[in-house]
């Protein structure tokens, strides 16, 4: 499943709503949905602020669900990330720089790569074991 938004902050809430719905369909509880949605929003915000800066563009949001996990990709065609995302925990008194820390803490896997002129942030959240066991059997693959 995928969709695009323009790189303006006003379109991010719509993306958040769609991502939250996808998480719920994947079987996550409200906390898991919220965490995954916040992380996706952080990646989208980064694309808008850092990759495109003042230029127009689109941010692609793609997700794929398996029986045990949900993977979300946020991609943009802006400038390449200058360096790998910081692994250092941000100073709590600073105004900025928390996005990647949140993503790494609340997603089970997170990575950045430059792929075919796109910046791609891939985040995966595993369904808790109990939820996997209780999840209704549906077809695997994209939702």
């Amino acid at each position, binding site marked *: 499943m995928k969709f695009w938004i323009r790189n303006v902050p006003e379109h991010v809430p719509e993306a958040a709503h769609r991502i939250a719905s996808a998480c719920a369909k994947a079987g996550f509880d409200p906390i898991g949905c*919220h965490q995954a949605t*916040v992380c996706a*929003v952080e990646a989208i*915000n980064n694309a808008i602020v850092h990759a495109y800066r003042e230029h127009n563009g689109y941010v692609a949001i793609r997700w794929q669900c398996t029986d045990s996990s949900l993977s979300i990709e946020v991609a943009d065609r802006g400038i390449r990330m200058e360096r790998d995302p910081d692994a250092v925990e941000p100073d709590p008194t600073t105004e900025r720089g928390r996005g990647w820390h949140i993503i790494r803490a609340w997603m089970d896997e997170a990575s950045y790569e430059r792929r075919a002129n796109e910046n791609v942030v891939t985040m995966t959240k595993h369904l808790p074991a109990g939820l996997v066991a209780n999840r209704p059997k549906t077809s695997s693959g994209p939702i």
Partner: protein
Amino acid sequence: MAFTVDQFAEVDVVRLPRRVMMADAPSIRNEIRTMVESGRRNIILDLSDVAFIDSSGLSVLISAREATRAVGGDVLLLKPTSIVRSLIELTRLQEVFEIFGSEEHAVQRLASTNVAMAVY
């Protein structure tokens, strides 16, 4: 207005909206700065209605703190929901802000600080 405000003598309780994201942050930040510039320096940020906040929203909290502290005031946080509290703790903002579960106690806290500074 990005939010509503209730005034209690020298303390303002800012009722933040349900959503505090990147699109909302500039207006909230600017309105708080306007309050501070008009002399309102003791502010309680009521988070009880906030259902979704991202790091842009957290930056607004920090910005408000910096603005009020620059003029001898302060910002307290009030009644974050459990999900918002989890983000606050993940980003260690509980080391930076006092967080209250009672509006009365938060108002008393800032009011007493104000009195102490006036006496001084």
